[in-house]
């Protein structure tokens, strides 16, 4: 069992949870505001579990909070997809949909992990992420199919985010499961939703890499961490 693999799961939920929480008070309708906050809340809760277990297994006296607040960008192991900025609501929901579609398959696979604690976290998360995927799929369908403007915005969002999809299925020995094995289920699900949303799967499968290995994050991550970590870094002696 790899600590890095746990950190990858936790960093994905942390970085996406942080991004989604930026919407608070600014969503297109009250129901969307509530749903976005709810999604962010689930993701932060999952972060506490993944990073908590990572810290425990690492055995160096760190905690979920020290991992979240006292690492620099090069030590983060999240996918490049989740550090992408929110842009408009359509791009936010497309990012969420692509991630949820992968995340649910990954968690389902992890419910059968031989490590009982990993399986338990996956089990708990599957319930929440099933709802996340349902909601983001419904939104992608509604906005893809809605008006000409909304269709164009959703297609543009998909095109823009497409190069960050492939990294989800790259895999190495640090992963908790073989992530490449999830691709066919993901592709089938994607096809169904895109068809209903009247959106086209972009040509080509070029993929940016470097998030989950930490080799090369995007420029966006550093800014996010500067905001997120400001208090614990500025006042290292304080407890909150």
């Amino acid at each position, binding site marked *: 069992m790899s600590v890095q693999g746990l950190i990858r799961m936790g960093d994905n939920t*942390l970085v996406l949870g*942080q991004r989604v*929480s*930026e919407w*608070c*008070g*600014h*969503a*297109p*309708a*009250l*129901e*969307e*505001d*509530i749903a976005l*906050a*709810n999604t*962010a*809340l689930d993701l*932060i*809760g999952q*972060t*506490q579990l993944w*990073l908590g277990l990572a810290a425990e297994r690492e055995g160096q006296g760190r905690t*979920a*909070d020290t991992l*979240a*607040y006292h690492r620099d960008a090069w030590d983060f192991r999240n996918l490049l997809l989740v550090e992408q900025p929110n842009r*408009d*609501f*359509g791009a936010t929901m497309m990012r969420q949909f692509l991630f949820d579609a992968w995340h649910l398959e990954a968690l389902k696979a992890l419910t059968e992990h031989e490590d009982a604690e990993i399986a338990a976290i996956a089990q708990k998360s599957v319930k929440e992420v099933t709802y996340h995927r349902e909601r983001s799929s419904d939104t992608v*369908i*509604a*906005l893809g*199919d*809605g*008006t000409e*403007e*909304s269709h164009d*915005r959703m297609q543009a969002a998909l095109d823009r985010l497409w190069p960050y999809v492939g990294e989800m299925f790259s895999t190495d020995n640090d992963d908790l499961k073989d992530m490449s094995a999830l691709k066919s289920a993901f592709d089938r699900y994607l096809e169904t939703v895109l068809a209903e949303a009247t959106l086209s799967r972009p040509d080509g499968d070029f993929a940016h890499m470097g998030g989950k290995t930490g080799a090369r994050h995007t420029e966006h991550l550093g800014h996010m961490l500067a*905001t*997120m970590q*400001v*208090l*614990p870094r500025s*006042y290292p*002696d*304080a*407890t*909150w």
Partner: protein
Amino acid sequence: MYAQMIKSEATQDDPEKLAAFQARIDAGEKIEPKDWMPAGYRKTLIRQIGQHAHSEIVGQLPEGNWITRAPTLERKAILLAKVQDEAGHGLYLYCAAETLGVSRDELTEMLLDGRMKYSSIFAYPTLTWADMGAVGWLVDGAAIMNQVPLQRTSYGPYARSMVRICKEESFHQRQGFDIMMKMANGTEAQKRMAQDALNRFWYPSLMMFGPSDKESVHSEQSMAWKIKMNSNDELRQKFVDQTVPQAEYLGLTIPDETLAWNDEKGGYDFAEPDWSEFFDVLKGNGPCSVERIEARQKAWDDGAWVREARLAHAAKKRAAKVAAE
């Protein structure tokens, strides 16, 4: 208290109907959406519930300001849950207002073009993490003072939404006080933040109850209709009496040199806030008044395509269903 200076409407209905209506209220009956009600009662309630709903929505902004900078994962989760509750409160209240014949979109437009207000407190900035404590402790504390009695208000949907809201507000206040305890017992820098937050939020919190009853011309009718349950001064006194010992417990100083226990009245004597500042805030000259409405306007404008697309998609689905039948 999220409803301030609610002008109550004079009413020109049939005196017999009015008397029967008043008798129902005096007997403690609840008025329900389909019941007859004076036009003034309806209008006053729309104004009051609308202002309360807007306050919940605008109130997300000063707290949302710190969600991305919450100092631990636990604090981030709690703050997210709290702000989510507030959006939920806005939703119940807009629904309660809808039963009076005004849509959420109409109310939103009235907020954005300045015809309707939100509580003065949310026009103040949140500058340090201690402000998340002060908002929970003082602002939610003041809101609870007003909202607990409103659970008994005469309009059924409003009273019922208050029951749900009050349950969540008391959790909000406790989490605020918990942040203040950590800050007040923390490092020198944290103590300084805590005292600074109290200094900045004390008088704006007192203003939440509205001006003195002596100057509050609208109270009488609203009290008779049981849509206002206590006088402004009464609630303010109760708030001060509750809060002063809590500040002492935290080791913080209330920024009022005149503050003193008065044995005779069994409560504290305290300085009035600067009411000219309050009226400036209501006129849109609060430190963040422009930013708050700008942010809501931007959310409304940027979200237009999403709302239109959802309607268009729902219409297509309905049409497809009809075609299939």
